[in-house]
């Protein structure tokens, strides 16, 4: 990793402030993504991965706000930019696709128009040009008969097709970073594989970096070169995705890995239950002191209950936050 990364998050803290209480939903989150790199954030619901993504594009809204830390895009602090400058960044340089392709498209506007709007908005094209570019964009995401499909309304398309349209919209302006927030959760497994493959290929062609957010460790490790595991608002482990299955260092990551079903394990080990992580994610308002994972951790000792673990650097840019890391 050299020079200025594409995006760099440093010690990010996001506060949830609903009048009476004031708590940190995300704390001490740091990571960097280089040009063309793929980085994944994994964690359970409510661990803060989606609001971290929203903070990256400057769209946190009350009661959430960035309380501390820095988010730098190509060395420029995003928080310091004017609203107009942030808006110009969104969609053009940083794009995002969502979990629900059903609702993320405007139901009363033909999909071609929604793609074309990106060229008009960010590239200053005329509608005529933009409409032609929209046909090309649809062809790029392998939608058959794009000249006819541009006139379709979202409800006339299948879920997979809609997600393709979303990808076409997101990649319309050749962004530097694509944030994919649970991009395939709402889709069938077969369609899921196609969409992931498509997204990965298109981004590789264009040199677009991907920040993928998911609860599915297997999926993220498959797509991304590096993976950050989030738990209760903190990154507990960050590794190359190859290492994460082979030698994960944090007990939580170990728990996630163990809870994945393995093909063929029944023949080798006999019939057994999938292992689960005992307990539930704590609510934001009552995160435990010390290591936030300690109430659910089998290896927890006294120090885990009192002191938050410091970052330990592992080889190859990996890091872990645990007092007992292997």
């Amino acid at each position: 990793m050299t020079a200025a990364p594409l995006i760099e998050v440093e010690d990010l803290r996001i506060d949830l402030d609903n009048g009476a209480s004031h708590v940190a939903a995300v704390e001490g989150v740091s990571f960097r993504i280089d040009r063309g790199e793929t980085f994944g954030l994994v964690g359970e619901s409510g661990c803060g991965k989606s609001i971290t993504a929203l903070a990256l594009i400057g769209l946190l809204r009350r009661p959430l706000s960035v309380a501390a830390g820095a988010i730098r895009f190509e060395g420029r602090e995003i928080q310091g930019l004017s609203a107009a400058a942030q808006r110009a960044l969104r969609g053009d340089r940083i794009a995002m696709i969502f979990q629900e392709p059903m609702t993320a498209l405007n139901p009363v506007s033909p999909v071609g128009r929604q793609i074309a709007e990106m060229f008009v908005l960010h590239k200053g094209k005329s509608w005529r040009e933009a409409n032609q570019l929209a046909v090309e964009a649809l062809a790029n995401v392998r939608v058959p008969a794009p000249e006819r499909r541009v006139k379709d309304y979202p409800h006339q398309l299948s879920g997979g097709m809609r997600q393709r349209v979303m990808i076409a919209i997101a990649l319309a302006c050749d962004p530097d970073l694509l944030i994919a927030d649970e991009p395939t959760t709402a889709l069938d497994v077969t369609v899921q594989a196609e969409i992931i493959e498509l997204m990965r290929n298109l981004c590789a062609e264009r040199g677009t970096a991907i920040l993928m957010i998911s609860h599915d460790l297997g999926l993220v490790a498959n797509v991304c070169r590096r993976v950050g595991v989030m738990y209760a608002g903190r990154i507990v482990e960050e590794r190359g995705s190859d290492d994460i299955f082979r030698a994960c260092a944090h007990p939580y990551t170990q728990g996630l890995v163990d809870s994945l079903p393995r093909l063929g394990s029944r023949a080798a080990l006999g019939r057994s239950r999938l292992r689960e992580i005992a307990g539930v994610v704590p609510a934001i308002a009552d995160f435990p002191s010390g290591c936030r994972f300690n109430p659910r951790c089998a290896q927890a000792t006294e120090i885990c209950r009192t002191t938050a673990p410091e970052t330990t650097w592992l080889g190859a840019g990996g890091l872990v936050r645990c007092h007992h890391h292997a």
Partner: protein
Amino acid sequence: MKLGTSAIIGGVLFALAIFVGLFAPWLAHTDPVMGANLMNAEEPPSWIWWFGTDAQGRDIYSRVVHGARISLTVGIVSQLVNSVIGVTLGLTAGYWGGWWDDVVNGLTNLMLAIPSLIFALAIMAVLGPGLTSLLIALGLTNWSFTCRIARASTLSLKSQGYVQAARVLGYGDLRIMITQLLPNMVGPIIVIGTLGMGGAVLAEASLSFLGLGIRPPYPSWGSMLSEARDQITTAPWLSVFPGLAIFLTVLGLNLLGDGLRDVLDPQSRSRRA
């Protein structure tokens, strides 16, 4: 697109009224104002005088035909003004919220608390009678329902995925309002607008009947009714035909509004495919 029976009947009635209004000079038999001839005063309806004549011997049919122009102009223009005001206020209030929402809400409640006809009367009293003041008075007094609907639609649409997505994709506020919010609320706005148009035709008739709208000798359906009220027992056709015109036009607009409600649901567009 499948239109219900009521929408078709309503549409035909409204289209007929528009047609009559547009081609009034060719459809009328005599000049509605200057065509007075005391030799023909108070003739009942016949093959020569289809709707009869009034005390000055003017042809009621010609006056009703010309009256369509005024009534429809007032109905359409004033409702357009209402829709523009209502949508602008409601959309911005719902979208931005905060103090602006409070102001608009207060204003809307104020407008709803004052009977709109009384308010229009007050404006007319200040501006004086005439077509322009009628348009202003009715255009400024009936936007509260549109505003409420626009605001409510905005509030529910604002949390929709595609509105959020638009923000993420770098759309500005104005672009979100015009491309994402407005097209998704156009159905209910048109329905309210159509019903409101019927209301405006009635309001014009009421104001003219009270002598504050269109003044004699120019024919509007309301002013014709006003002039006819003394002769309602001796020459009922003077009241019946303008009354019928108002009735059919308003009925048509109401049926059309109801029918459009079913058609303008975006989901029903799939039937076209």
